[in-house]
Each structure stands twice: as structure tokens, then as C-alpha cells.
């Protein structure tokens, strides 16, 4: 027996069009509706997150702009202090150059045995050429051994040593090669 329904369907009430949805289509239709709702909800949430992030970005940029003039002055101060520090280091370095040169010579003189004295020191870059006199050949050998242990130098090389009959001693020349 055929069923007769005199009540108006929801679609008729809302749109004036009778849409008949059979039982077989209800589940897929509900799935479609749920999918649309889900997509709309996700879109809404994402938009809200994006809006919040954009507002935070605008606030941060405004804060940065507000401190920009003060920051520019501080950057100029930093640059000036860096320049003064470099200049101070340079002046300090120059002020120590005399002491360094004197110490270099003093170290040579102090390390030599008493019987081997220097007559000439020539500085050639970082290397040094020495000339001196000693009581005997053995003294020059001792001087050479001492100079070979001098800090900052790679080697001490004997250039010449000869007896000086006039002064009854020996004359020597030694080259000190600095560490490279």
C-alpha cells in the first residue's frame, strides 16, 4: 500500500521545492554537509590565526619604529666607541714598541756568556745578524749553543769565527733566524 504524507517537507518549507531524499542518499548527503561544515570551520580558524599573527606583526613593527631614532643614536655611539677602542689599541701597541725593541736586545745580551761580548747587532726584519768577540773558540761555541735556545728564533747559524792575533781573541758573526 502506498504511503501518503500531507506534511510539507523541510525543503518545501524553506525553498518551496519538494526535495525528496531517499534513505539511501541520507548518509552521503550528511557526509557532504559535514565535509562542508568541517572545511568552513577550519577556514574560519585559520583566518582567525592569520589575523592574530598579522596584528602581532604590526604591533612589533610599530614598536621597532618607535625606538628607531634612539637606536640610530646608539648605533652611532657603538661605531664611535669601536673606532676609539681601535685607536686606543693602536696607541697602546705603539707605546710598547720601544720596550719590545729594548727587551729584544737585552735578551740577546743577557743570554750570551760573559766571555763573548757583542760588538754589532743588525736587525733585518725579524732576523738578527750579530758580530762580537770572544776569549776563545770554545766561548763562541757556548754562545752559539745559548742563542739556539733563544725564544722566538728558529736557529742560530755561525757565519764566521776567526782568531784576531792583534787583540788576542776571536771575532765571530752569527745569524739568528726568527720563527716563521
Amino acid at each position, binding site marked *: 500500500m502506498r504511503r501518503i504524507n500531507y506534511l510539507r517537507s523541510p525543503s518545501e518549507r524553506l525553498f518551496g521545492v519538494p526535495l525528496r531524499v*531517499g534513505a*539511501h*542518499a541520507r*548518509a*552521503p548527503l550528511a*557526509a*557532504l554537509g*559535514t*565535509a562542508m561544515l*568541517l*572545511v568552513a570551520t*577550519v*577556514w574560519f580558524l*585559520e*583566518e582567525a*590565526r*592569520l589575523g592574530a*599573527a*598579522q596584528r*602581532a*606583526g604590526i604591533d*612589533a613593527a610599530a*614598536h*621597532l619604529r618607535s*625606538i628607531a631614532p*634612539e*637606536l640610530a*643614536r*646608539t*648605533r*652611532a*655611539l*657603538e661605531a*664611535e*666607541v669601536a*673606532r*676609539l*677602542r681601535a*685607536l*686606543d689599541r*693602536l*696607541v697602546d701597541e*705603539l*707605546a*710598547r*714598541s*720601544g*720596550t719590545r*725593541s*729594548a727587551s*729584544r*736586545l*737585552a735578551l740577546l*745580551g743577557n743570554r750570551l756568556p760573559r766571555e763573548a761580548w*757583542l*760588538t*754589532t*747587532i*743588525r*736587525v733585518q726584519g725579524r732576523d738578527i745578524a750579530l758580530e762580537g768577540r770572544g776569549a776563545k773558540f770554545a766561548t763562541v761555541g757556548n754562545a752559539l749553543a745559548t742563542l739556539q735556545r733563544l725564544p722566538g728564533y728558529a736557529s742560530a747559524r755561525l757565519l764566521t769565527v776567526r782568531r784576531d792575533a792583534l787583540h788576542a781573541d776571536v771575532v765571530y758573526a752569527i745569524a739568528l733566524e726568527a720563527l716563521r
Partner: protein
Amino acid sequence: MNAPRDTVARALALAALTVLVAGYALGARGEEQRIAAQLNQNGSTAERADDALRSLAERPALEAERRRLRERLRRTDLGEDAARLVARFLRGAASTAERHGAAVVSVDAGDAAHPLDAQRDAIPLALELDGSYRAILDAIADLSRLGVPASVDVVSLARTHADGPDRTLTAALRVSLLRLAAEDHPGARAAPH
């Protein structure tokens, strides 16, 4: 009779699936990328703001350091006038040598100043000192502390009279006086207040 019904159901199910996939692909993923880009930009802005705040916090210390450095550098003659620098160095060198028992015997200012960089140049002087070993070493140590920025290097040290009994030594020194351009002076380019 069931075939059309199945077709409608399948079409609806396919539409639901399509809405989900398209919603994710076109909407959600694009939004996520935009959010990620915005958060990235926010992070970079925040980092710059933190850096700026740190710099601002250090400003009092920087101002104190600037005062201290200016005060220290004021004790050194960083003048731009080469003649004045040389004159001041020579006066100081002569009195220092004398104080230690040595003597300046010659000064050769033959070479012209040569630039070290855009703001600085070096004025070379060849200086000779006579005196005892001790006097010369003491004088050399003090020559670079005369209040004129100068580097002092020894070129040679030899007995003045090679064969005589006199033990006087002559030291040949290479001196470079530092001269600054006006804009590199400690007082120049002061930070705006």
C-alpha cells in the same frame, strides 16, 4: 530500480570527498603557509627588537667607555700637523736620551709620510743614539712613550769606535710617528645626543 539510487549516493559521497580534499588543498594548506610566513616575519621582527633593546640597555656603559677612552687618548698627541708632531717627538727624544745618559746624534727625516690607511699616515724618522749599552736600552724603551704615538724599532747597535777602548755604542733606530686625519681624532664624529 536500485541503480539510479546507488549513482546518486556515490555522487554525493564523491562530492563530500572532493569538498574535503579541495578544502584542504586550496584553503587550509595555503592558509597554513601564509600563517607560517607571517610567524616567521614576526620572529625576525621580534629578534630585531630584542637586539635593539639590548643595544639601548648598553648605552650608558658605552657612554662611560667613550668618556674613558677620550680621556686616555687626550694624553697622546694625535695631531694632524706633521711638523708639530716631529718637533714634539724630537724634544722628548733629546730629553729622554739625556736623562738616561745617552745622546741623540742624528735625525734623518728624509722620506715623506706614507699612508697607512685612509685616516692615518706614518712619518718616518731615522734616529741615531750614542751612549752606553744600558743608557741606550733605557732610552729606546722610553722613546715610544713620549706622548707622541711612535713605533720604535732598532736597525742596528754597534760600537761607535770599532777598535778603540771606548765602549760607547751607536744605535740606529727606525721611528714611525702616527698622524691621524682630522675625522679620525677622538673628539671627531661625536654621536648625536
